[in-house]
């Protein structure tokens, strides 16, 4: 059975050209970039060439790119590092209720006042709401560029226009493949991303820092990354990240076309189905559906049995008792959130595969609906 991978928001397949660029640094170019000898200099050259490509992509200075272990570290770093150097007695952070857990939990773990901006039903945060939330002690605004569950695009450039002197961070992890990440145009002070979402390796990412005096390091014990991020460089990872960024394709019309085809066929051919999040303000690779009388984990299992890999916002898939915070934030009922299916396309997908997936989804849903019968309707009537 040929497997079909449709979980590209979780991670992506490494591009062979990325792997090829990394191989020397996993084998014979094994020096530590901090060493002065030829081995070290060779490794240093590798990471500095990568840094240059990356700075080019983001339209910033090489010195403004700081390598990390991934977006989770970068997001932790921004929130904790900015609060630490803040001169406010009780600093205030503005973020949204649909951020990734690493942003939300970092906010919970710093001594700061937090405002969580709720998105509208379409899954988009309003610039006006952010403007209204700004207070005298606001030191940081952190809003993601593209949501990882429903793919909705947030108005980053517009927020930058109203932020004044407040520091502004965006988690751009899901945006790199498809959206303009020129930091000058975006107007951000910090930007986070991960290598493995862009056909690069896992365990590497970066933080763009416009002004390093406004953030402290959260990891000490070495002079790497201008003394702000201690720890031996992940040389093969960084080289891979550089290559992956270099390979980002400007033309994503094929993915967009297939995604639209998938959405229109599912909504037409599966009864009681709906799309979560705005279709207009949406990443071209994301589709997120809710199916009535369906529980997501069961659906995921049936699809997995057919070799199809997707994701769900159902609590049962994670072992927690709460359904996806993003789906609940855009106003879905818990049962709608439990019946959700996230499909995220990647550059290797074909139309033939999408056709297979549609048929398997239809088959699986009809099987599960036979199992659930009318139990939900009966429950609702009793309430």
């Amino acid at each position: 059975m040929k497997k079909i991978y449709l979980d590209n928001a979780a991670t992506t397949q490494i591009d062979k050209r990325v792997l090829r660029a990394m191989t020397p640094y996993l084998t014979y170019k094994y020096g530590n970039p901090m060493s002065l000898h030829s081995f070290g200099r060779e490794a240093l050259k590798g990471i500095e060439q990568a840094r240059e490509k990356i700075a080019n992509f983001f339209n910033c200075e090489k010195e403004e790119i700081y390598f990390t272990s991934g977006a989770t570290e970068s997001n932790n770093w921004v929130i904790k590092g900015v609060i630490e150097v803040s001169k406010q007695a009780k600093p205030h952070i503005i973020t949204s209720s649909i951020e990734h857990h690493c942003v939300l939990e970092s906010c919970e773990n710093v001594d700061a006042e937090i405002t969580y901006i709720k998105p509208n039903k379409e899954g988009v945060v309003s610039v006006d709401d952010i403007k209204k939330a700004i207070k005298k002690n606001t030191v940081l605004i952190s809003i993601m560029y593209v949501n990882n569950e429903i793919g909705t695009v947030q108005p980053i450039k517009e927020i930058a226009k109203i932020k004044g002197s407040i520091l502004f961070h965006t988690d751009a992890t899901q945006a790199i493949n498809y959206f303009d990440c020129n930091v000058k145009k975006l107007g951000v002070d910090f930007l986070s991303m991960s290598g493995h979402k862009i056909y690069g390796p896992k365990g590497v990412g970066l933080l763009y820092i416009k002004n390093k005096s406004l953030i402290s390091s959260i990891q000490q014990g070495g002079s790497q990354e201008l003394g702000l991020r201690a720890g031996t460089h992940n040389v093969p990872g960084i080289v891979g990240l550089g290559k992956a960024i270099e390979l980002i394709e400007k033309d994503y019309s094929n993915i967009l076309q297939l995604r639209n085809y998938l959405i229109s066929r599912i909504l037409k051919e599966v009864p009681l189905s709906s799309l979560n999040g705005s279709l207009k303000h949406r990443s071209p690779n994301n589709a997120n559906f809710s199916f009535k009388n369906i529980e997501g984990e069961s659906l995921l299992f049936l699809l997995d049995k057919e070799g199809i890999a997707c994701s769900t916002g159902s609590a049962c898939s994670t072992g927690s008792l709460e359904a996806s915070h993003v789906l609940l934030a855009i106003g879905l009922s818990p049962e709608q959130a439990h019946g959700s299916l996230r499909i995220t396309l990647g550059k290797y997908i074909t139309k033939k595969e999408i056709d297979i997936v549609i048929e398997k989804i239809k088959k699986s849903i009809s099987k599960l609906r036979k199992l659930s019968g009318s139990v939900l309707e009966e429950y609702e009537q009793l309430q």
Partner: protein
Amino acid sequence: MSNYNKKVLKYFLNPKNRGKIKKADGTGMVGNPVCGDLMKIYIKVFKNKKGEEIIKDIGFETLGCVAAVASSSITTEIAKGKTLKQALKISRDDIVKELTGLPKEKVHCSVLANQALKKAIENYYSKLPASTTTSSKTSSRSTFTKSTTSTRSRSH
């Protein structure tokens, strides 16, 4: 996703006793859409020559995860052909044991199946004329109260 064993997956993929039973003698619905699982069990009861009440037929409808479906299915299998007194004794541990284990975070799903069965039996007893009630009624009543309280408390 949880790591289920082969038996759980077998029951999930090919569930036994699926679906409604028309003119059921007792039904029991438990669960809560907030936590993701809803389950309803239907029973048909008949009296054997000894006058014991036997579960002659049983069916279920479940909206829930793999563990919830597999637990519902195996519970109906265990209960089928048993006397009501025996069926009331089926515990959560019996269900998990019969499935040869459930992932830790999924054990709570097996509670639902056993509660639904108890509720269906209770529902059957509640429909009987007062004179025919037996001692098992009291015991099942107490279970019923307990189970409904625990289900309701989850919705808050």
